[in-house]
């Protein structure tokens, strides 16, 4: 394990790791049921350095922004290392966004360089708002022979004349700009520094050490703050192996656990719940006698691991369950959204500890993490070492807004000092989430103060980001809200969005209007869709610049309407 206090930048730490473990396998890429590639740290270095040279010859200077839009694969990490080593600032964009959203964020981030895989680039080029004269220098991976790249360079064919120079950065310099939202509204580009990442990594490995021989299955998109940390930086500084899957079909994910004898994986609650369902169905099919024996063994495991997980014992006690996960799984990390305690307990009872955590991109990923001493299914764990958490304006029940302070909190939002000032107050990151700290220092979450939802897939959806598809709806005015924002409830599951429409005078909400709303709704990615609508007859309160006063409107609606007023769409 590298001593990260010795390094000032991600580039420097990663360079050191490449030298320290040249013969260890760092990356395995699997395509369905076969290996596509295996790279040692030496191979990684030999692939990354020439690309760093290419970027530098193409004009990438220290501090320049370079974006990556790719599914999880070795070239993602190779490109990222080349950017860091060249002193660049990485802009990891979500490959699941639409081409127009990609273009909007490329513009907002002022990315001078883009590394993108061919199918995604093809979609971007075909977008109505694509401008061929863009100034961005683009490298496209895996383009088929003869493909029209619209002026982009072919990643695999570019060569530089000279070796690259390593460009050192300071801890306070930006390392990444990560968008936590804002594809359709106000972009929130979190500027995270090298120091943010190095300190976050140091805190995580103090609880979950990574070393050569550890294999991490990377399923969440690497552009996501969690996988960037847990599926890239953390394994690399420990000399561990990262496994990428080209297909995320459930059957290939299940196979990967066994084939690569996975040690750690990060999942979103939706996938964890799906695993729970699959296992539950298998257990239900056991003959009655076997089922009773199995239940008894699970009960024994629960008692024996009450204080702390003893994975070796659980593997011995419940071998069939553990074999299905490859037999070497130490823990599953879960994050990105709220996980139900019953799901966490289900896995823990089987001897598979799930490290439940809580974080925000603005906090450099993780704020609290369950360290299993002891395991708690009812909380999101304790603050990471070095991070402070406090509850602002707690009510009589101790519930208030969660605020966090520490070395992992982002520097600022890109080009938005106003939003930065609202979000980071006297050094404290105001999360907008509601929680309570207990006597053991564990944080428990109770809903949100902010107008947004998080899906079980770990997607943050802000109402402002999806309102553009409803522009032109033939009503007087409309506004989208998170239902839990209108009528706060102490839950973080099953969150939904609703649209509030104010009809024209005399207008009724007929089938034509409902069909219009439905059609517009379907233009959104499934996880972004609204689930119902509300009719509101009064004027929307607006500012002098005619922006809707959402807080005031929500307050008025809260007084006059009940959740039953929401009609399904």
């Amino acid at each position, binding site marked *: 394990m590298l001593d990260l206090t010795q390094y000032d930048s991600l580039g420097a730490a990663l360079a050191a790791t490449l030298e320290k473990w040249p013969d260890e396998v760092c990356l395995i890429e699997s395509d369905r049921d076969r290996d596509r590639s295996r790279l040692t740290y030496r191979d990684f270095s030999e692939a990354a350095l020439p690309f760093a040279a290419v970027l530098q010859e193409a004009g990438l200077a220290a501090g320049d922004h370079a974006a990556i839009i790719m599914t999880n694969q070795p070239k993602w990490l190779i490109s990222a290392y080349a950017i860091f080593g060249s002193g660049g600032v990485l802009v990891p964009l979500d*490959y*699941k966004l639409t081409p127009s959203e990609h273009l909007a964020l490329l513009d907002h981030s002022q990315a001078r360089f883009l590394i993108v895989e061919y199918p995604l680039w093809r*979609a971007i080029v075909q977008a109505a708002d694509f401008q061929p004269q863009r100034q961005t220098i683009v490298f496209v991976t895996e383009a088929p022979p003869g493909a029209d790249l619209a002026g982009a360079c072919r990643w695999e064919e570019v060569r530089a004349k000279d070796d690259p120079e390593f460009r050192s950065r300071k801890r306070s310099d930006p390392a990444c700009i990560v968008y936590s939202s804002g594809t359709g509204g106000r972009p929130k580009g979190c500027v995270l520094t090298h120091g943010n990442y190095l300190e976050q990594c140091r805190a995580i490995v103090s609880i979950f050490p990574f070393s050569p021989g550890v294999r991490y299955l990377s399923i969440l998109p690497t552009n996501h703050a969690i996988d960037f940390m847990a599926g890239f930086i953390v394994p690399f500084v420990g000399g561990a192996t990262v496994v990428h899957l080209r297909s995320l079909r*459930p059957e290939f994910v299940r196979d990967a656990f066994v084939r690569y004898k996975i040690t750690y994986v990060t999942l979103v609650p939706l996938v964890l719940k799906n695993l729970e369902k699959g296992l539950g169905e298998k257990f239900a099919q056991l003959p009655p006698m076997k089922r009773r024996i199995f239940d008894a063994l699970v009960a024994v495991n629960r008692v024996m691991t009450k204080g702390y997980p003893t994975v070796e014992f659980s593997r011995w006690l419940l071998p069939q369950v553990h074999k299905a996960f490859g037999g070497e799984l130490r823990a599953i990390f879960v994050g990105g959204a709220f996980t139900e305690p019953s799901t966490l307990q289900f896995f823990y009872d089987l001897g598979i500890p799930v490290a439940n955590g809580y974080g925000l991109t603005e906090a450099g990923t993780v704020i609290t993490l369950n360290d299993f001493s002891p395991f708690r299914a009812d909380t999101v764990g304790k603050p990471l070492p070095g991070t402070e958490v406090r509850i602002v304006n707690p009510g009589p029940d101790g519930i208030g807004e969660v605020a966090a302070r520490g070395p992992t909190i982002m520097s600022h939002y890109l080009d938005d000092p106003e939003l930065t000032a609202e979000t980071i107050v006297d050094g404290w990151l105001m999360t907008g989430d509601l929680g309570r700290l207990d006597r053991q220092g564990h944080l428990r979450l109770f809903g949100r103060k902010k107008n947004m939802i998080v899906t079980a897939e770990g997607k943050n959806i802000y109402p402002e980001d999806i309102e553009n598809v409803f522009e032109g709806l033939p009503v007087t005015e409309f506004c989208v809200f998170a239902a839990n924002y209108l009528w706060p409830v102490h839950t973080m599951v099953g969150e939904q969005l609703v649209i509030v429409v104010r009809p024209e005078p005399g207008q009724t909400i007929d089938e034509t209007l409902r069909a219009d709303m439905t059609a517009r709704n379907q233009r959104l990615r*499934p996880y972004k869709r609204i689930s119902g609508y509300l009719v509101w007859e009064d004027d929307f309160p607006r500012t002098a610049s005619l922006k809707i006063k959402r807080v005031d409107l929500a307050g008025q609606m809260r007084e006059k309407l009940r959740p039953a007023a929401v009609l399904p769409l």
Partner: protein
Amino acid sequence: MKTLEQTTEEILGLAALHFKVPREQLSAGDDFYRKLKIDSLQALDLLTRLEHHFGIELPDYEVQGVTDFRTLATRIQARL
């Protein structure tokens, strides 16, 4: 060689059977997330079944952003 209409028809039949939805309730232009009431993982499961049925491999990126049966049929047809 199947026509696009035949491919679409087979997809609709398979989806109806697998997710236990009356076939007559499904049409080519339908959003399958909405009509079948499925999440993203179940959609991936549907793709696997379609691959087995048609004897093809459909990379995940090919169906990125696809939500209706007709577009799905087009992507499959291109690989038959």
